[in-house]
């Protein structure tokens, strides 16, 4: 379990929802205005239908998207295809060297000439709305006579080498008719059929009671539709269509978890609404993970619930998965050397405030690192962690490191990793709070420094010691002399047979057991003066149960010491990232608890065992990722 240095389990990096190699071209989403030729009951832009962006505004945004280094401009709305500037915008986009895409109800694409014109101007991606496989269902949802045109558009677009997705928004009106849509789309093997939970926003909010289905039902019907679709595709011996889902909690989709599809799997990086001065990153802030989701292994890629849904129905439908281990680190991959001659000293000189932009960068996933005159930009694509988790790791916990090793997975943190911290450049910057920030290397070995506190605790031990998760015995230099002098009597427990076998050779003075904490059987009379759980806490599936067994065995005046690591981000070159992605390490942690999380688990035991905190060190910017919590039992 525990060993000298915490090991990053690098990384099942491929976003499970995305096919590797596809959809890598980064997209900017531009809303051109909110007018529309349909009137969907659920439309999230229902209240702003009167607002249209001007030609000049959209032109300027297309140019800005190119400047930001995007590879595709996608227009949405409202309905972008009803704008007379449509072809002009496609031309402009192509002239800037970018591909062109549309989020559309598809009606205008029923005209073959329109499709031809657009394809000639680098139309490469269409995300088309179709909410039912029949006139009746689709027209009911969009409150227009639109089915024939939208369906014709699918025919016009299919087989043209486009990235073509058909989005079906699910409300109470079509939730029982998803298979009809599958049937209608079976002839189009290159289509991705996506089933999306309706968002309670705009019409979806106004007509909540009328439209909103229970998400558990939606998940059930979506699984049925996908399994039906998969079966039909197999029967027909076709390569598609493929099926995916969006905005449905993954715990409700057992067996289909990896079919999730969202703005990130489509490689959207930024978006801009009418009237906004610059692009913003796409984020998941309209959705929420409930308290119950803590420790759920699916949390990284899971969309959670829409805030509005959660407010009304709560989280009772969710089934967090706590039985699967998850990653404890993620990679930031080098994307671009932004400058080789940066000489700025204060925030006024900062590149982000001078052209690169403050708002377009994701505060968690984009990372600017300055080293002297060089500034590089890194990007974290990992879906092992949610946006909120990544944000907290970067800003609240400050756990970012530059990997200076040549290993697939750094294993000697003190040597392999250099900590990154917010640059002095950011001090006093008016954009500080909304900015992803500039980071700089901190040339101090924070790991060795912070581990000194653990060593101090160990050196003070007297009497009977239980070390749960003793691993390879990293603290031999302190424990051996104490044990040999009879100052402590040591029991080490770890489920890893090899580690225990090896310790048996090395540590004749120790009593060792090869078992997991959950299975540890002790003489009923056995008591301890000190219990240690050193970097093994997050390996415990059910820490509550273990505390419940062990705390009664701690003598009055004895202590419990818990030490563990929070998750961290690793900035790496492209080569390093690629190597890491190829080597699939096993995940070992069930959670990435912080001190606060562990304290919450201890809480209920406080009164019963008279627990009093006697030491703590928390994780923050400029500390290592290791925390320590020590309580006395009275």
């Amino acid at each position, binding site marked *: 379990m525990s060993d000298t240095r915490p090991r990053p389990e690098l990384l099942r990096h491929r976003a499970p929802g995305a096919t590797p190699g596809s959809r890598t071209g980064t997209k900017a989403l531009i809303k051109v205005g909110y007018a529309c030729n*349909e009137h969907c009951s659920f439309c999230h832009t*229902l209240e702003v239908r009167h607002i249209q962006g001007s030609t000049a505004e959209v032109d300027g945004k297309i140019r800005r998207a190119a400047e930001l280094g995007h590879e595709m401009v996608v227009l949405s709305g409202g309905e972008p295809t*009803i704008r007379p500037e449509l072809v002009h915008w496609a031309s402009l986009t192509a002239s800037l060297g970018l591909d062109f895409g549309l989020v559309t109800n598809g009606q205008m694409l*029923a005209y073959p000439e329109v499709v031809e014109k657009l394809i000639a101007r680098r139309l490469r991606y269409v995300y088309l709305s179709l909410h039912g496989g029949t006139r009746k269902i689709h027209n009911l949802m969009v409150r227009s006579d639109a089915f024939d045109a939208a369906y014709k558009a699918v025919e016009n677009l299919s087989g043209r080498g486009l990235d073509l997705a058909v989005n079906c928004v699910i409300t*109470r009106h079509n939730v029982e008719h998803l298979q009809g849509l599958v049937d209608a789309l079976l002839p189009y093997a290159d289509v991705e059929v996506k089933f999306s939970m309706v968002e309670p926003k705009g019409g979806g909010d106004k007509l909540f009671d009328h439209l909103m289905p229970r998400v558990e039902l939606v998940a059930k019907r979506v699984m049925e539709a996908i399994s039906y679709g998969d079966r039909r595709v197999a029967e027909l011996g076709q390569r598609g269509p493929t099926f995916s889902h969006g905005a449905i909690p993954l715990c409700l989709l057992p067996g289909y978890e990896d079919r999730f599809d969202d703005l990130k799997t489509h490689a959207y990086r930024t978006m801009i609404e009418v009237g906004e001065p610059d692009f913003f990153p796409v984020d998941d802030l309209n959705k929420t993970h409930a308290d119950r989701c803590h420790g759920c292994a699916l949390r990284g890629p899971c969309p959670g619930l829409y805030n509005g849904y959660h407010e009304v129905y709560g989280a009772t439908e969710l089934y967090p998965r706590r039985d699967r281990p998850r990653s404890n680190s993620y990679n930031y991959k080098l994307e671009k050397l932004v400058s080789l001659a940066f000489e700025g000293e204060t925030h006024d000189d900062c590149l982000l405030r001078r052209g690169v932009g403050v708002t377009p960068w994701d505060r968690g996933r984009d990372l600017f690192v300055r080293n002297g005159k060089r500034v590089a930009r890194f990007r974290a694509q990992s879906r092992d962690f949610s946006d909120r988790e990544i944000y907290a790791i970067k800003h609240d916990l400050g756990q970012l490191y530059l990997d200076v090793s040549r290993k697939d997975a750094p294993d000697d943190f003190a040597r392999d990793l250099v900590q990154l911290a917010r640059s002095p450049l950011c001090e006093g910057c008016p954009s500080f709070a909304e900015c992803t920030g500039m980071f700089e290397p901190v040339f101090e070995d924070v790991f060795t420094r912070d581990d000194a506190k653990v060593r101090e605790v160990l050196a003070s031990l007297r009497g009977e010691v239980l070390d749960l998760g003793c691993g390879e015995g990293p603290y031999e230099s302190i424990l051996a002399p104490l044990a040999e002098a009879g100052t402590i009597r040591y029991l080490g427990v770890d489920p890893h047979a090899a580690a225990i076998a090896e310790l048996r050779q090395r540590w004749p003075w120790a009593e060792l057991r090869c078992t997991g904490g959950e299975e540890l059987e002790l003489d009923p009379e056995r008591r301890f003066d000190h219990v240690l759980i050193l970097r093994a806490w997050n390996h415990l599936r059910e820490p509550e149960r273990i505390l419940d067994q062990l705390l009664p065995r701690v003598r009055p005046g004895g202590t419990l010491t818990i030490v563990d690591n929070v998750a961290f981000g690793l900035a790496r070159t492209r080569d390093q990232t690629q190597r890491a992605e190829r080597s699939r390490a096993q995940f070992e942690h069930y959670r990435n608890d912080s001190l606060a999380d562990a304290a919450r688990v201890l809480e209920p035991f406080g009164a019963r065992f008279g627990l009093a905190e006697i030491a703590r060190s928390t994780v923050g910017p400029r500390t290592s990722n290791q925390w320590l919590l020590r309580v006395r039992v009275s």
Partner: protein
Amino acid sequence: MSTDNQTSFTDIPEAVVSVAATDRSVSMVVDSELYPLQAVYGASYIFIDRCYVFIDRPEPGKYRVTLTAKESVEEAEALRQLVGEYANELLSCAWRHQVTQDNRVAIETVTVQAIAGAMGEPSLDDLADFDFTDEALDDPLGIAQSWEDKHGRKSPAEKEQAKAKVPEGEAAEATEAASTEEASA
């Protein structure tokens, strides 16, 4: 040009019909059906730093490319390498030529826009006045009309939405009452 050397070119690249070499130069004959003149020019251009390049047409349907080393070439191996490299270049130029043909419309649009761009960014006023008639789309079915225009209402949404009621037209029968059973057809 002696054809004796031919034997050292047994693995002639596919791009090349035949190869002949002297001690300083090598010439290749390529099929003009397979490789358009533009591709031959394109590939040759890449070599003008390293060799003198001469292109002629020994017979209809064939181009002959002669590469003459600027400094004396030590071994036949170096010449062999030139042929190989040239053939690869030729293939890649031909491919690019083909892609260009396929995307001509797009590229023309792009070029026009790029030239416009070179004259400086248009001002906001220019853009607002931009005439889109060239790029306008025919819409005989009136699809591009906003829902409000088509249904002759200014802002129908508000009232209806509040009451969760359906407007008029095709969809009218549907909406509010449309229970899922009803819609199952």
